[in-house]
């Protein structure tokens, strides 16, 4: 299905992984903040070299299958084996495959190889762009890759007629169409929010094209926009990370990263840019296409500081938008309201619930910090497992009936499973204040499925079901109290840990987190939670009145706006970004990034970057 867009993991991981990857297998990186800019840059360049050396060495003499586009791009970035790269490239260009996932690697190879590849290899690339028509795709990450690549190749081969291009359009037409789309997407993102927001994998599918524009666009304005969008994407990531792990609500994640929070392409960027976590296997797969040009980018210090400073607790708010809705909605892009509360020990993040994205939405969780995240399921959350043709018709243009089952064979195997832990629900409403989350569910009879699932990790240090109805847990240095609103049972999970299954349509979850350091003892924490005023009502519709550990009086009723300390909560003033580090007004196209005295303002209306050190 389309649509159902794709990781093309088979392509990513077609490389042999036998050879040790130093940082992937090695000890945890020293997470000390590097103050000296030259040392920080040197460490960054060292990580780039590590990845390039590893991937370049994957190519084995006499084994063409080991010598793919990833190896070529790595070798060309290192300026080695140009003759072998040329020879192999000629072969690979005879049978292109991969659509937009083919376009950007080949674009990088061509630009890196302009003064290295043989004329014959360049001609083979040129011919492939005439004869092979890639799919344009159906999501914004597809279009970012497609149009950034087409923009750069049309720039490289100007003044050519339509007969020389796969789509019959001239160089000028391709250049202008690509430019127009990219400007459109940048404006949309910087005024009403990113559509595929805060993705643990797809962050790469946006960052790589933007890096290529920042590196190779000849138009200084487009080059500047590419650089600014990189800053924008990475600031958006850095502010919601905990030791490199992308935390909070995600438009898209996957069944693995959902539990093992570190294990996503986003952590590759944490390793590369922040230096505070290991890279994922094979440097995230696509990561190699970022490092191939990464020397042309430098993460601004203000973003580095935001990503690495967890000395203080903060709450970050942001507004995103849903992916484009085609059916079952009166709006094309509905607003997404995100809240993320971050401490050095844990993070709590959420959206407002509902169907905000298809299939891979993750609406809320608590993630705790761990000394080494590899293999650790350092999270707790619940979800209302839902699937429907209605959901898929909203976001895809396919015929309805085959889609749910088809999705399961498109890399999303749990989509129709009752036990699923991934995905949004139209029957879940969420409200977060500080480190408290209240999720209420009201599932109509007959819907898939009339229940709530809760994830309880194999890596919880403590777990106690209390007579009060609370389930008390500890993960790392975080205490987490979890309150199911309806009776439940336990189901084992193949990956370890267990699933709370609460088979009731009127349902929900309350979670309250705290740092271990806030209490003298585990018993004190439990006593404090038990003492919090709490009223739960499930009929006629779920309602919770709860006074949080932070003293906020919350009243949440399914179908109604939340009430905080007696005042009905109003979402209308929600900004694009607000918090101590990132601030932007809806529609402004201007993001202010702040850390301490450092400030960078990205103004997309004037295409300017303004740095200052505040007095």
């Amino acid at each position, binding site marked *: 299905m389309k649509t159902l867009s794709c990781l093309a993991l088979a392509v990513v991981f077609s490389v042999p992984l036998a050879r040790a990857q130093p940082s992937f297998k090695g000890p945890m990186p020293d997470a000390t903040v590097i103050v000296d800019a030259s040392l920080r840059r040197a460490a960054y360049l060292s990580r780039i070299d590590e990845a390039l050396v590893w991937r370049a060495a994957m190519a084995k003499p006499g084994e063409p299958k080991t010598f793919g586009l990833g190896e070529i791009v790595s070798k060309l970035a290192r300026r080695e084996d140009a003759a072998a790269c040329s020879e192999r490239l000629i072969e690979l260009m005879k049978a292109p495959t991969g659509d937009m996932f083919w376009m950007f690697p080949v674009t990088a190879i061509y630009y890196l190889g302009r003064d290295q590849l043989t004329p014959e290899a360049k001609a083979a690339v040129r011919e492939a762009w005439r004869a092979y028509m890639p799919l344009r795709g159906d999501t914004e990450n597809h279009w970012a890759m497609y149009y950034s690549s087409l923009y750069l190749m049309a720039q490289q081969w100007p003044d050519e007629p339509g007969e020389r291009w*796969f789509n019959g359009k001239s160089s000028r037409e391709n250049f202008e169409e690509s430019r127009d789309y990219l400007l459109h997407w940048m404006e949309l993102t910087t005024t009403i929010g990113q559509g595929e927001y805060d993705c643990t994998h797809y962050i790469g599918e946006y960052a790589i094209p933007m890096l290529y524009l920042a590196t190779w666009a000849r138009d200084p304005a487009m080059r500047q926009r590419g650089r600014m969008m990189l800053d924008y994407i990475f600031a958006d990531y850095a502010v919601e990370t905990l030791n490199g792990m992308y935390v909070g609500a995600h438009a898209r994640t996957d069944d693995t990263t959902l539990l093992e929070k570190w294990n996503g392409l986003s952590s590759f960027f944490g390793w590369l840019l922040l230096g505070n976590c290991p890279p994922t296997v094979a440097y995230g797969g696509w990561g190699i296409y970022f490092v191939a040009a990464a020397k042309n980018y430098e993460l601004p210090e203000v973003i580095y500081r935001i990503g690495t400073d967890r000395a203080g607790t903060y709450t970050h708010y942001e507004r995103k938008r849903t992916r484009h809705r085609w059916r079952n909605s009166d709006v094309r892009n509905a607003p997404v309201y995100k809240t993320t509360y971050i401490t050095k020990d844990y993070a709590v993040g959420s959206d407002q619930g509902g169907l905000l994205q298809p299939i891979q939405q993750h609406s809320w969780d608590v993630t705790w910090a761990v000394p080494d995240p590899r293999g650790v399921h350092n999270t707790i959350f619940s979800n209302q497992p839902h699937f429907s043709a209605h959901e898929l018709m909203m976001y895809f243009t396919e015929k309805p009936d085959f889609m749910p089952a088809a999705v399961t064979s498109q890399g999303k195997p749990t989509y129709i499973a009752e036990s699923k832990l991934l995905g949004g629900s139209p029957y879940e409403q969420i409200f977060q204040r500080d480190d408290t989350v209240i999720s209420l569910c009201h599932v109509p009879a007959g819907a898939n499925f009339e229940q709530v699932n809760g994830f309880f990790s194999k890596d919880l240090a403590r777990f106690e079901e209390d007579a009060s109805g609370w389930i008390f847990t500890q993960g790392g240095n975080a205490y987490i109290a979890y309150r199911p609103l309806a009776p439940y049972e336990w189901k084992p999970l193949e990956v370890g840990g267990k699933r709370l299954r609460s088979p009731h349509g009127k349902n929900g979850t309350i979670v309250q987190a705290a740092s271990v350091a806030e209490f003298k003892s585990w018993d004190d924490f439990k006593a404090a939670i038990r003492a919090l005023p709490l009223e739960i009502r499930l009929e006629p519709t779920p309602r919770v009145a709860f006074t949080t550990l932070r003293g906020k009086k919350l009243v949440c009723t399914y179908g109604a706006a939340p009430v905080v300390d007696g005042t009905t909560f109003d979402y209308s003033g929600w900004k694009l970004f607000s918090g101590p580090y990132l601030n932007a007004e809806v529609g402004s196209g201007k993001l202010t990034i702040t850390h301490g005295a450092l400030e960078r303002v990205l103004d997309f209306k004037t295409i300017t970057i303004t740095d200052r050190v505040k007095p």
Partner: protein
Amino acid sequence: MQTLKSKLFFAALLAALGGHAPIGAAAPKHDLYLSVLLSGPGQIMGGRTPALSGVYRSTDRLKVEHVGFGHIRMFQVIGDPHSADGLYLAALNGVVHSKDRGKTWRILTGWDMTEPKGLAIDPNATDHIYAGLPDGIAVSRDRGATWARMNGGIRRSYTQTITIDRTQAGRVLAGTELGIYLTEDGARTWRLVQPTTETTYDLRQSPHDPKIFFAVTTSSGALWSEDRGLTWKPIAGVPKKHTLHNGVFDPSDARRLVLCGWDAGLLVSEDGGRTWLDRTAGLPNRQIWSVAVDPDQPGRLYASPFQQPVYVSEDFGLNWKPAFFEKATAFNLTFVPRP
């Protein structure tokens, strides 16, 4: 060199193996185009494609040849009234045109138009092309050189199918998410003529009587109009609980209609839609993605059961045999006049 006699022999042999009779000495007036996905429902964009999907053409109803590019989503093929060698495609990449029967292509639409599902050219104003998009309707007045969005008045503008009344230029019906809309001024204004609860997937004008239109929907069953699409009534005997994909007139026989859908199987009517007979027996499943009636061979039907061969029947659905491919999902089966 093969003699005519040997050609006919091999054609007959192939047809017997393939399960259906060749057109024979009388050359068909139309080519059959099949827009198919051959790499299974698990195929994702950007993934390796084990089989070459896209548009296939059969000039003899015996074998098929691949035409153009191998995309996994191609939704409709129509002919070009200005050129016997011309073809238009509604494809995931946009509206695409070939001037040479598929040797070369040009995408006519830009970044702002994705995944057109339906395409129609006004037979009385042949420069005018209408495209149904997931977010509206686009119209070109210059054979696709430029496009404008023209879906004013349509709420929930997802548009799956477009049909142009051949009796009046600029009179167009569109099957959308929430009903059938009509324009009589070339898409400048639209009005709802038949609400539906979900998407209308096919909309056709009778080749025998231009006042008659036939539509199929997701959950409103099949609909019938006898006043050029102004008013509609549900067709009795057609279930509403399944999504219907195609509703087709038999160009050879005004009494005959066919429809198909997901779990709905394949139904035929031989009395102008008054009664319906289930003709799914002989097909491997009831998930019939598309159906077409051969305009050159009375009684011949083609049907595409989900992820099965494309089947053919010589007796209007009484008996079926596999005809093309091993496992296909045919998004569209259509006949284009032969050059």
